[in-house]
């Protein structure tokens, strides 16, 4: 309680400071001054709605404080929430932007093109200004994911360490007891992808499941993670260049082609709906398409029970597929960004700060079952007693961000497209690698690792 009061005190000071920086201080203007802002917030699915609601409640909180201060200034924010997929949502943003309808705050998959194309503004100023007040306990690895050319461009608002979910009940039906299961698939991920595939094949052959292993139907962090499992080097951290790692890529594609042949992976990745539905129904043994927080979505949309989550499902980071690789967990997210079209970036930044407060973070976490993105949120009464969140929260610390490079997602798109071609049997693994090689020639400074 005491802590909260000091917090409010801080904020009041802050706001008075802040208002003075905006030349509209209440003394000179009698009538109400209302700042109107817009925000476009994206999913995932209906489950991400708290990211939008948090902005709305941030505005309310600010207005309350302003009122208590007697200031005539008000903030009005209209938030639009979209359940579009990230790709189409980004398209829409670019179009809106060109049409002059860009929102002030937007929530996109982070892409350095946004910064290079002058679509968004850097936020270092605000982060530095309010570091002690608010941003001090964001997990530090998250900032890496939104840094580009020595600037921070977005505020993290969500995290989902991607990994492997599998069905323990299927393994039990195959005759393993819980101890054996934990030994084969330890929760730290120190096993191999082939072990997983072997079990999946057994389950498929026994007719227990329809699908052995399902991966994402589109590019994304989980896809990048599977590349890492095969030791594929996509990005050179030293030079900041993208890399095409032929031998590792070939291994990656060959493995998938073999899995399709064995019937473990379907030749055509099913849609998200099918992935989730069949996994919850127990018709899929293992999904590489999900992350720590996915059970939240399963519970809300697909009828997963707490008991089943407790007993029948198991999670681990992506296990290595080749020797010498550590289990990995990867994240990507859509941070809050402020567009260059924003007329009052200060107010937008303030809104974002309130919308990422420990309590707001806890609200989001509680609703989605995703781990909080800042440590102090774990203390919040909302999730303090939530066993699942408390249990999975540490996984965030080891998560690594996806590389920040303007062509990284183009690369992933191409690589994923080739994967689909390999699985469908339209091209061979060698052709897939050739395809990527020819893509590489169109990107400046691409590095190649030859066989």
């Amino acid at each position: 309680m005491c802590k909260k009061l000091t917090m409010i005190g801080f904020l009041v000071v802050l706001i008075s400071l802040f208002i003075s920086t905006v030349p509209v201080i209440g003394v000179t203007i009698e009538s109400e001054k209302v700042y109107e802002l817009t925000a476009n917030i994206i999913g995932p699915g209906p489950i991400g709605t708290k990211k939008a609601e948090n902005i709305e409640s941030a505005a309310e909180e600010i207005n309350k404080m302003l009122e208590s201060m007697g200031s005539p200034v008000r903030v009005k924010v209209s938030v639009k929430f979209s359940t579009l997929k990230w790709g189409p949502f980004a398209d829409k943003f670019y179009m809106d932007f060109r049409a002059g309808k860009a929102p002030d705050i937007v929530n996109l998959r982070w892409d350095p093109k946004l910064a290079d194309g002058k679509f968004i503004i850097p936020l270092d100023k605000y982060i530095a200004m309010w570091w002690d007040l608010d941003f001090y306990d964001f997990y530090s690895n998250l900032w890496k994911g939104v840094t580009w050319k020595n600037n921070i461009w977005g505020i993290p608002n969500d995290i989902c360490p991607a990994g492997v979910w599998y069905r323990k009940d299927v393994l039990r039906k195959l005759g393993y007891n819980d101890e054996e299961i934990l030994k084969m698939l330890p929760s730290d991920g120190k096993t191999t992808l082939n072990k997983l595939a072997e079990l999946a094949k057994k389950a498929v052959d026994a007719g227990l499941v329809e699908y052995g292993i399902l991966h994402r139907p589109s590019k994304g962090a989980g896809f990048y993670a599977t590349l890492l499992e095969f030791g594929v080097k996509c990005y050179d951290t030293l030079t900041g260049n993208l890399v095409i790692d032929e031998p590792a890529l070939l291994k990656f594609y060959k493995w998938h082609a073999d899995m399709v042949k064995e019937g473990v992976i379907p030749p055509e990745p099913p849609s998200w709906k099918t992935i989730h539905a069949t996994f919850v129904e127990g018709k899929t043994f293992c999904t590489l398409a999900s992350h720590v927080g996915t059970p939240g979505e399963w519970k809300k949309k697909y009828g997963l029970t707490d008991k089943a989550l407790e007993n029948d499902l198991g999670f681990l980071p992506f296990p290595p597929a080749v020797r010498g690789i550590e289990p990995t967990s990867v994240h990507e997210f859509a941070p809050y960004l402020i567009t260059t079209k924003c007329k009052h970036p200060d107010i937008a930044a303030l809104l974002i700060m309130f919308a990422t407060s420990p309590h707001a973070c806890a609200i989001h976490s509680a609703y989605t079952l995703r781990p909080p993105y800042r440590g102090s949120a774990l203390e919040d009464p909302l999730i303090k007693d939530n066993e699942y969140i408390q249990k999975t929260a540490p996984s965030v610390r080891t998560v690594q961000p996806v590389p920040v490079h303007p062509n990284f997602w183009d690369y992933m798109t191409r690589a994923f497209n080739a994967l689909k071609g390999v699985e469908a049997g339209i091209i061979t693994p060698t052709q897939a690698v050739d395809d990527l090689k020819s893509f590489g020639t169109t990107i400046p400074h691409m590095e190649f690792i030859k066989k």
Partner: protein
Amino acid sequence: MKKVLGKWTIYISLSLIAIPFLVMYIAFFMQAFSKGITLGVIPQKFGFSNFSFLWNPIPWGLERTSIWGIFLNTVLFASISGFVVTIVCTLAGYALSRLEFRGKVFFLSLQLMLHAITGQILLIAIFFLLFYTKLLYKIPGVALARASLEIPLGIWMAKGFFDTVPWDVERAAIMDGCTRFQVWYMIFLPIIKPGIGALFIWGFLFAWHDFIYVYTLLSGTVPLLSTMLQGLLATEVVDYGVIAALSFFYMLPPLILFVFLQKVLMKAPIMGGKGIA
């Protein structure tokens, strides 16, 4: 006996071609009006629950869009297109049917050539054109672009309507002292009323059905029924049942128009149906 057998082979071969389509149509219909289907076509529970979007907001996240706003957008878009097609084509059709001027043959054959170029391959350029003229992402601008796709053939259609009017009517009107514009306005327009109706409906329907122009030039910013449906399909947030019901709702106005105005439409040259989109 041999003849009877021959008849049956005809029926059977026709049915064989038709069955996959019938299955698709029936599955679609059943999906729209039931909770779900088994065996491809057999509905589980008949009802209108999928149509709840008619009185509730569309289940599209927090973007609580009412179907009726989108419906009105679509009506507006299609109507503008219909009007533009009607006005431009009745004007030009008259000149091409009744006036003699240099380059007429060239103009007419040009229209046929332009119609053959579907406009889809010019979409990139049209995108930039609209962007620089500040018409991009605005219903009137895009409707104008969409209407211009139908104008080449529309001019031919309109010419056909004017051609059916006997020359003596025009000769009489000119003797009575009409100017050309008066002839057009006071004599011809009333005579070819059904043709004008057909032109309007024609422009309206193609705009109503259009996807790629709306998707590329209006997308997101201003949803129409076609792009909204495609968006729902792409995002997978709603069931197939709701999508089928929405599709049904989307298809209904043109179907009703078509059934009621079939006679008028059929007066239009049959080429009115445009190739693939």
